[in-house]
């Protein structure tokens, strides 16, 4: 309230950059002022170097690709299943009565709570991580798809029926496109939770299996904690987690605009 006119450069560069830069400077100076801690204490420049070193050694690209592969395959499976289940529930009363209570019972269980059982069932590798991601993705996609499907204007369906459309045609040409915005929204929400969950899953596995072959970003971070105490490498991992989260979110927003150029 009551903002005075500010010069354009100040509004554009100074304001958004001031606090982050100040924080980084304080961080760098605090560590440099304590020579005794310089062995393990990370600095911003150390983190930048860490990025370079981990990329050259191949550890960062390898773990990142492994995590990405898991999240996308887990997502693909869960997304297909969730959309199919939502279609079934919205089209058939019997399916709704049988499936809905069971799904509503499992929905509030945090995906992370399944990690121990996933390890028991699938071991400490890719399948356990995929299960966790799949569980995290399934429910937001299911709920949003169902909301979207139920929100379809019945007049559109009736119009298509009047014009002689078959049941499959109505699903494919009328219901699914009309529900598309909420389906994509569900996918975006699900991927957000899924990415946090997969890091947790890899971390739990990494902290228990003693650095086996299970891999992934989460485990990479944990190995640096328990074996070499390279804190700056851990921060590299954290920043990578953040960047991937941003990219996934931006990708889905882009997809939303691409699939639905009309305003909604």
């Amino acid at each position, binding site marked *: *309230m009551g*903002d005075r006119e*500010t010069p354009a450069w100040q*509004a554009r560069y100074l*304001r*958004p*950059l*001031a*606090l*982050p830069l100040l*924080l980084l400077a304080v961080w760098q100076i605090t560590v440099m002022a304590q020579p005794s801690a310089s062995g393990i204490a990370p600095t911003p420049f150390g983190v930048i170097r860490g990025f370079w070193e981990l990329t050259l050694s191949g550890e960062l690209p390898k773990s990142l690709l492994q995590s990405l592969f898991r999240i996308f395959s887990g997502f693909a499976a869960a997304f297909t299943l969730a959309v199919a289940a939502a279609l079934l529930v919205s089209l058939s009363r019997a399916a709704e*009565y*049988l*499936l*809905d*209570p*069971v799904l509503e*019972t*499992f929905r*509030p*269980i*945090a*995906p*992370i*709570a*399944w*990690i*121990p*059982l996933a*390890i*028991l*069932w699938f071991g400490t590798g890719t399948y356990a991580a995929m299960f966790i991601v799949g569980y995290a993705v399934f429910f937001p996609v299911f709920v949003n798809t169902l909301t979207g499907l139920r929100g379809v204007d019945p007049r559109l369906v009736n119009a298509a029926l009047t014009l002689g459309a078959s049941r499959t045609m109505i699903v494919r040409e009328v219901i699914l496109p009309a529900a598309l915005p909420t389906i994509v929204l569900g996918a975006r929400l699900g991927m957000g*939770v899924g*990415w*946090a*969950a997969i*890091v*947790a899953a890899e*971390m*739990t596995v990494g*902290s*228990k299996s003693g650095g086996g072959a299970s891999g992934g970003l*989460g485990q990479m*971070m*944990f190995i*640096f*904690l328990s074996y070499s*105490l390279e*804190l700056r490498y*851990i*921060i590299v*991992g*954290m*920043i990578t*987690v*953040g*960047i991937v*989260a*941003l990219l996934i*979110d931006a990708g889905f927003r882009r997809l939303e605009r691409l699939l639905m150029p009309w305003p909604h």
Partner: protein
Amino acid sequence: MRRSRLATGGAAITRYALSLGLFVLIWFLAALYVGKPNTLPRPDVVFHEALEMIASGELLTNAASTLRRLLAGFLLACAAGVPLGLLMGLSRSLEAYVTPLIEMLRPISGIAWIPLALYFFGIGEALPHFIIFYGAIFPVVVNTAGAVKQVDRRLVDAARTLGASHVMVVREILLPGSLPMIFVGARIGLGVGWMAVIASELVGAPSGLGYLIEWNRTMLMSSRVLVGVFSIGFIGYLMDWMLRRAAYATTPWWTGWKQHG
């Protein structure tokens, strides 16, 4: 009218019982087929285990320590996040300074902080508190700031015209007007905090529900793990329901509850 509602309520319960009964039956048969109680225990075994864990107090003590951590971290996040969000909603220059920092840190999930926090805090109470606080504060701040901005400016102007002071405008108009959206932020924050507390207990805490399921996993006691998993779901649902009720009770006039409730 009344009778028909009762009848539909009864039908809903029957449907629920039928659906869950069928699920438990499938689970039972699957467990018999698999035949390995360490992998997939029978539902009746899980039920007995649950009774035993309640009777021994194991379940309740662990749930209590998880809830204590969640509550402390979450309340701290609200105590810091709501005032900060209010200030950001009031001052555009403060918002311009703080938002980039928030947007920079927010994508890094609280869970990704666990290894670093584990180094600084060690195993104990500080770790889950920090992770919950970190996870919950962003939704609270962002929603509060957004809430203040969507309060009808005409109300503020009207109050000003009638001679209300700054403090009065904040207390009588902006705060009540943004309360519903603050509740929405708090609900999201509580959900994120619930994930965060379980995750941090899985890795680095000597008690709590997350610790309980991970410990029983290493003991290969699947039935006890399942009891823990279902308790986590149940408590999470219960907390969300209570917060929803509280939100509705404090701001019954808000028309957005259909959308956000």
